[in-house]
């Protein structure tokens, strides 16, 4: 599983192989020159023996060398950083783009089933986390390893015994870090569980503050909060404290290495095996050598995290897209509006069949109303007609063409849709109305808005048609949003209409006016109307009464009332006391 993920990450990296190669070379250059400087410093110090025995003949050339090397190192480092940034941010950009493009191609089933928050966090937070991990991996993991290997080589070239001391003691620091990490992992998990618990409570209580106030429930909810808060405090303290031991502990190991080098090094100097300058060089190495170890242990957790994030992103990117349009699918259909459903069956989940053996024939221009209790399959019907979902059995035909043989784009062009769930995009009012017809003129827009009775309130907005709508139309009322959605359809004038509870948030007086406008619009257009208020559908040519995924009654309003069945019961109950 993990291996697969790494392979996929490598695939994204492949495009940037030149940059990666450059990055490797630059890292190597940086490491070598960084490590060479202590040796030079040591050599310079050996030129400073004591009073009267300072040899500037040795010191000057060495100092020059150091100076030049420093500049080379700095430039390498700078280029390396830029190179790593370049690779990381480009890879991230690629991945994000791919993930988003995928979103537009996924079957709606996926979007409906997975929480929005979760998908958003994959595209944004997970990718970001992955970027951090990748960048850290490049900058620290790689140069860290080079640094360790390099240091050992350089040390070996000077003195074996001291190298031995360093190599023996350092792994201790890794062990300590790993030990603490393992211990604290449980504590961190405990902390984040408690945190999640308290967040849920906060979400619920603060999110419904108004209900709490209405029931004077504040004290009780504070009590519950305090109990969780106390537990969080304990869990947090443990996690924070134990994890913060890592630093002092590794620093202590560091001190051990330093003392060891000092001790053994001093003996070696006395025995004349190395010079004092070389000892100082070793002391610098001792400090540098443990640093990458500490960094790497940090980077490894970060990398694991990054890989876990990558896995989630790839799962999204690799999700099966909706079935592509058929090869020779019709692309230029201008529907007359004849719709035929034969033996349609559909289910969201395998266990529960929602619609079965559904048959219906709609002639062009017919007005079809669908009524029934919640969960009877009204909205599912709409989903199938628009091909948001595909039928599991049977077929739907428009003007004799099976839906599968028309491109989705062409099919949807033929529908005008107003949903109960009003959605507006961020942008101006104008942009929202012209969604289906971007090249509409101002006159056309105003006319459409007037037909939808939206012109009045739009005019009163600060910037009229150019007023910015905040995310999800926060500055408009539900009813106003619905009027905008209706204007959208009024502008496009598509051959077929779908109105799913299109006027549910509008007061009944305005609704009547809009119904009239719809009435004009629907003339000669096949239309489907789903409505809660039965008064809005009495004029339909045919009313389908649905229950449990099947049509149980079908006919005109008066006929159905005469039948005195389910519909009559529903209809009459709205006037009963």
């Amino acid at each position, binding site marked *: 599983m993990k291996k697969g993920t790494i392979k996929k990450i490598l695939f994204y990296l492949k495009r940037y192989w030149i940059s990666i190669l450059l990055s490797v070379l630059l890292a190597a250059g940086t490491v070598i020159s960084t490590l060479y*400087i202590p040796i030079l*410093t040591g050599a310079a*110090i050996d030129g*400073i*023996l*004591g*009073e009267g025995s*300072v040899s500037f003949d040795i*010191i000057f050339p060495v100092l020059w060398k150091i*100076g030049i090397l420093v500049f080379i190192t*700095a430039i390498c480092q*700078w280029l390396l*950083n830029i190179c790593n*940034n370049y690779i990381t*941010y480009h890879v991230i950009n690629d991945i*994000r783009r791919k993930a*988003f493009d995928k*979103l*537009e*191609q996924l079957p709606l089933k996926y*979007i409906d089933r997975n929480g*929005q928050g979760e*998908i*958003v966090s994959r595209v*944004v937070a997970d990718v970001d986390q992955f970027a951090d991990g990748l960048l850290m991996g490049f900058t620290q993991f790689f140069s860290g390893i080079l640094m360790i290997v390099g240091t050992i080589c350089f040390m070996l070239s000077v003195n074996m015994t001291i190298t031995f001391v360093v190599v023996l003691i350092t792994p201790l620091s890794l062990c300590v870090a790993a030990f603490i990490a393992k211990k604290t992992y449980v504590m961190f998990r405990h902390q984040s569980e408690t*945190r999640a618990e*308290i967040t849920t409570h*906060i979400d*619920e209580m603060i999110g419904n*503050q*108004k209900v709490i*106030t209405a*029931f004077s429930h*504040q004290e009780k909810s*504070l009590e519950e909060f305090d109990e969780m*808060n*106390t537990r969080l405090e304990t869990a*947090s303290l443990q996690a924070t*404290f134990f994890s*913060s031991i890592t630093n*002092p502990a590794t*620093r*202590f190991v*560091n001190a*051990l290495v330093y003392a*060891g080098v*000092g*001790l053994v090094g*001093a*003996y070696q100097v006395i025995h004349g095996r190395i010079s004092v300058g070389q000892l100082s060089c070793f*002391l610098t190495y001792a400090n540098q050598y443990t640093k990458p170890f500490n960094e790497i242990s940090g980077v490894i957790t970060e990398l694991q995290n990054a890989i876990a994030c990558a896995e989630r992103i790839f799962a999204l990117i690799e999700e099966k897209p909706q079935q592509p349009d058929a090869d020779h699918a019709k692309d230029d259909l201008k529907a007359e509006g004849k719709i035929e459903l034969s033996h349609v069956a559909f289910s969201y989940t395998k266990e529960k069949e929602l619609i079965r053996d559904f048959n219906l024939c709609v002639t062009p221009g017919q007005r079809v109303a669908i009524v029934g209790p919640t969960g009877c399959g009204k909205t599912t019907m709409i989903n199938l007609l628009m091909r948001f979902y595909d039928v599991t059995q049977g077929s739907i035909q428009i003007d004799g063409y099976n839906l599968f043989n028309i491109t*989705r784009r062409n099919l*949807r062009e033929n529908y005008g849709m107003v949903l109960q769930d009003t959605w507006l*995009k961020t942008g101006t009012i104008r942009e929202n109305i012209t*969604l289906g017809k971007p090249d509409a003129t101002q006159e056309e827009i105003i006319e459409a808005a007037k037909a939808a009775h939206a012109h009045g309130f739009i005019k009163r907005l600060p910037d009229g048609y150019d007023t910015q709508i905040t995310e*999800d139309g926060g500055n408009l009322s539900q009813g106003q949003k619905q009027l905008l959605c209706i204007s*959208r359809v009024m502008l496009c004038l598509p051959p077929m209409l779908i109105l799913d509870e299109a006027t549910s948030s509008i007061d009944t*007086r305005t609704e009547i006016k809009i119904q009239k406008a719809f009435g004009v619009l629907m003339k000669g257009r096949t239309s489907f109307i789903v409505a809660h208020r039965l008064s809005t559908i009495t004029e339909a040519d045919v009313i389908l009464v649905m229950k449990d995924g099947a049509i149980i009654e079908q006919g005109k309003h008066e006929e159905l009332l005469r039948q005195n069945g389910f519909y009559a019961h529903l209809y009459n109950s*709205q006037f009963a*006391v």
Partner: protein
Amino acid sequence: MIKLLRFLKTYKKESILAPLFKMLEASFELLVPVVMAYIIDVGIVNQDKTMIFRMGGVLILLGLIGLICSITAQYYSAKAAVGFAAKLRHALFSHMQSLSYNEIDQIGTATMIARLTSDINQLQAGVNMVLRLFLRSPFIVLGAMIMAFTIDVKEALIFVLVIPVLSVVIYGIMFLTIPKYKKVQQNLDQVLSITRENLSGARVIRAFNMESQEMERFHEKNDQLMKMQLHVGKISALMNPITYIIVNLGLIALIYTGALQVGKGILTQGQVIALVNYMSQILVELIKLANLIVTVTKAVACGNRVQAVFEIESTMKEEGTKSVVKTQDCVVFDHVSFAYGNAKEEAVSDISFSTKPGDIIGIIGGTGCGKSTIINLIPRFYDVTGGNVKLYGKDIREYKIAELREKIGVVPQKATLFRGSIRKNMKWGNELASDEQIIKALEIAQAKEFVFANEKGLEYKIAQGGKNLSGGQKQRLTIARALVKQPEILILDDSASALDFATEAKLRRELSEMQDKQTIFIVSQRVSSIQHADKILVLDDGKLVGIGTHEQLLLDCSIYQEIYESQQNNH
């Protein structure tokens, strides 16, 4: 931000000891180069092996004491930071609960949740870091310089020169990049909002064939984000190389002047090595300090946001406690006007009506006409901006808020239930309610049947937000919850909208049969829901345009007639 420090008061001891122990640790760290210099200058020169051995022991001992000091410091700082966060969280949660509807509208729920969760977490991390490092790093930088002075004044002058230059470079780059990182964050937010928008509007986008335009829009923002990231990256990439150059130039200077001083016999070889060590310690600490400043600025920003919430006081004042005299009148509105928050226009204006105990009051009108506003004024969720609302002859502002709300049961438009069993939810109305009382309430609310259709009955666990119930079921349960309270006044704010007509009719019948002296307000858009009320208030655009019974209004209120007809045609 500074005001928030009061929550650290309980942890005074910890907040002082933590940095103190950190400084102790730092002092021991500063001694290491001196000991090493001693080994070289005395031990090696005199070839004194026992002395070297002893000094090696001293080095280990210094490390060990450092370890103990450091762990003590970490413990105290963790304790102070975590305790601080817990105290703050409690205070903030409790403060938020004291706010009235007006302030809740103003702040917004999402913001309040963010303040309570992520902001406080950030603050906790910030306090922890500050206690641990804020004294330590400057102490080591200064300490290293002072140690250099004790070794040799001339050499120390190099430190005096290098430290400011390093600081300027590190903090200069930081202050250059911080605002740019903010821009990166803004770009990222845009990417986030497009993604969210495309998910919530997936159906509309596909219905209008907007997929490719949306992709283009996303690609554009995504590229902008990348460009910004690369731009910032370029600047911050300068940090390491430049500091590296400065420190090493300082090193070269140290060795050169050191060599001169050694030649004159003022310094020893070991002391030069010690000076070189101090130089590299300074660099490490300055970089740590820079990271710390980033964390601290973030924490301060969070702290200011949290403090801002604390500064929002509930505008609702609680006053009198005079005993209640029951009069003939129940709820009376006397020329009441009200405007939300900073809104210029009044949501309702000049509303006057009176009710008697036991009345059923219907309120009808178009979207946004002020129906819910009127209802919200009765339990004092908002305070009127003009006129007054009286209950039993007394201004509701003279009641204790808890006492007032005790009398009123509200069923809000949005059916909200909480995690926990149905019984627990029902007991919100009345902590002491017996199962019989609850079942009776469920029965009236037409909920008994479906509650007991499940074998768990009252024990049935409701998921967060009532996700495992249908809209209609939730609505019926919220009605039952208000009934369990047995309030003197029951308010149904369009609470039956998700019920089918048959169920709603049954509910209405049960309610009218049940009530003894209970006053009921019913808000609805449907004439059928309110036509049998004792009194119907007709609202239009915030004004009361009709008041009377169904029959009266049909005769003399044109708006009521219009509403009625709009719902009756074809009948």
